[in-house]
C-alpha cells in the first residue's frame, strides 16, 4: 500500500528532529518551575473574574 509507506517515511524523517528525548526528571522540574515563574504574575491578575467571564452556551 503506497500511501502507508509514504507516510511512514515522512514520519521517520520527522521523528529525530521533533521529538526530544524524555527529559530527566530534574531538568523537567527546572523547566516547569521556570515556566511557572514566567506566567505566575499573569495568572494571578483577576483570576476569579477572568474565569467567571468565560460563559458560553453549550454545544454538541
Amino acid at each position: 500500500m503506497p500511501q502507508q509507506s509514504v507516510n511512514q517515511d515522512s514520519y521517520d524523517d520527522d521523528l529525530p528532529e521533533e521529538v526530544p528525548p524524555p527529559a530527566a526528571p530534574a531538568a523537567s522540574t527546572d523547566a516547569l518551575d521556570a515556566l511557572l515563574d514566567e506566567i505566575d504574575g499573569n495568572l494571578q491578575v483577576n483570576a476569579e473574574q477572568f474565569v467567571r467571564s468565560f460563559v458560553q452556551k453549550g454545544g454538541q
Partner: protein
Amino acid sequence: MISAEVPPPLEVDPARRIFGLETEFGLHLDTPATRPITPEEVAGHLFHSVVQWGRSSNVFLTNGSRLYIDVGAHPEYATAEADTLTDLIALDKAGERIVQGLVAGGEERLRAAGIEGTIHLYKNNTDSAGNSYGCHENYLVRRRADYKTFAADLLPFLVTRQIVTGAGCITRTPQGAHFSFSPRADHMWEGMSSATTRSRPMINTRDEPHANAELYRRMHVIVGDSTMAEPTALLKMGSTDLVLRLMEARVQMPGLALAREMQAIRDVAHDLTGTATVELAEGGRATAVEIQQAYLDLVRSHLGGIIAVTEEVEQILDLWSRGIEAVRTRNFALVETELDWAIKHKIITRYRQRLECRLDDPRLARLELAFHDVSPEHGLFYRLQSQGLVRRIVSDEAIEKAMTTAPTTTRAHLRGRFVKAASEAGRDYTVDWVHLKVTGEESRTILLKDPFRSEDERVDDLLSSLNPA
C-alpha cells in the same frame, strides 16, 4: 443536475480507514467593557475575514476541512478526510492555528466597534458555568445490518478509555474539589442515540455516512475529550481504530458489557486511583484498568494477524500500556509528557504547591484555561511543548502544510484542489463533503461518494475549465 457517470467504488484494503475529528472551540472575550457582549457578537467579528473570503460563516477550506460557527457561537473546525493518523493529527493541529489566526482580526474589529479586549480560544469541553461542547471522532466503518449491536460492543471501551486519553480536569463540588480524568464524562446521558445537544450519547447513531451508503457507515463517537498533546490524539484515535478493526473482523469482544454506562463513566472519571469498580451486565464488577487491559490484550493477541505490525501500531500499544500502568501503579511520571490528563495533573499540582492553595482556588481554574488556550505564544500547553515537556508526533512543517493543503490520498484532495481553483478563478461555487459545483447554468454537480478516491477525471475536467491554460 447531477453528473451521471459516477466511478465505481475502489477496492480498499480493510486496514485502511477514513478518520475525521471535529472540534468545537470555547470562545472567550476578556474585556474591561461594562456592557455585556454576547458570544455571538464576538464570533461575528472573529469570522469577518472568513465571511469575506467565502461569503458565508460556514466554509470549506483549501485543506479540505470545514470551518463554521456552531450552536452556542462555538467556532468549529472539522478536519478533512484523513487515511492515516499522522495526517489526521496534522490537520487537527492545523485547525487550531487556523482559528487562532482569526483572533487578531477579530480583536481589531471589536476595537473599531469600541470594545477593547483580548479573544481567547480554548480547545476544551466546558465553560465556567458548566456548559459543555464537544470533540467528535469519525471512523468510517463497513456497513452491516447489525450496526447497533456492533456499536454497542465499543461502549465498555469508550466508557473506560478516559483513564488514558482523558483531558483531565479539576471537578468542583459542594463537598470540595478533586482531579478527574475527563471533563466530558459528567455530560453524557446515553450510550447511543441519534440526538446530540438534547440528550448527549457516547455514540451518535444518526446514519449520515458522507459516503456510499451501501458500503459504509460513519461511526460518530462524541464522548471524547478535546485533547492538546499529539500523543494523546494518536492514542485516542489509534486505540479506537484497533478495537474497531477487530470488531469489523468479527472477533469476539471481551464479555464486559456494562450494566449502567452513565453511572460507570462518572465513577471512572472521578477515581484517579483506577480502583473504582463498575457493574457488569452479566454480573460482577471490574475496574477501568482491568477493562482497558482486556481490550489491549485482545488487540495484542491479533498482532501479526488481523492487525499488521507497524511502527505506529507499536507506538500506540506502548503508550496504551504505559497509560494503564501509570494509573494502576499511580506512577503518573510514566506518561507525564504524553497524555493530557497526566501533563495537566503535573502542572496543576506543581502550581498548587507554590501557591499553597486548595484545589478549588480560582488561580488553578485560570491555569486550566491557559492550558487549553490555542495561542502558540500565550497558551500554556504550547509553552510546555516548546520547552520540550511534551512529546511530538508530527512536525511543525507538516502542520503548516496541512493549513492549506489536503491529504493527497483521500477525497479531500479533490475538494481542496476544487476550492483553491474556484476561489482563485473568482467563481461562485458550492461545496460540501460529497458535492462540488461551480455556479452557472451549464455546470453539473459532481458527486463524490467514495472517500478513498483521490483522483477523478470529472474533477480534473472541471478544474481545467476553470483555469484554461
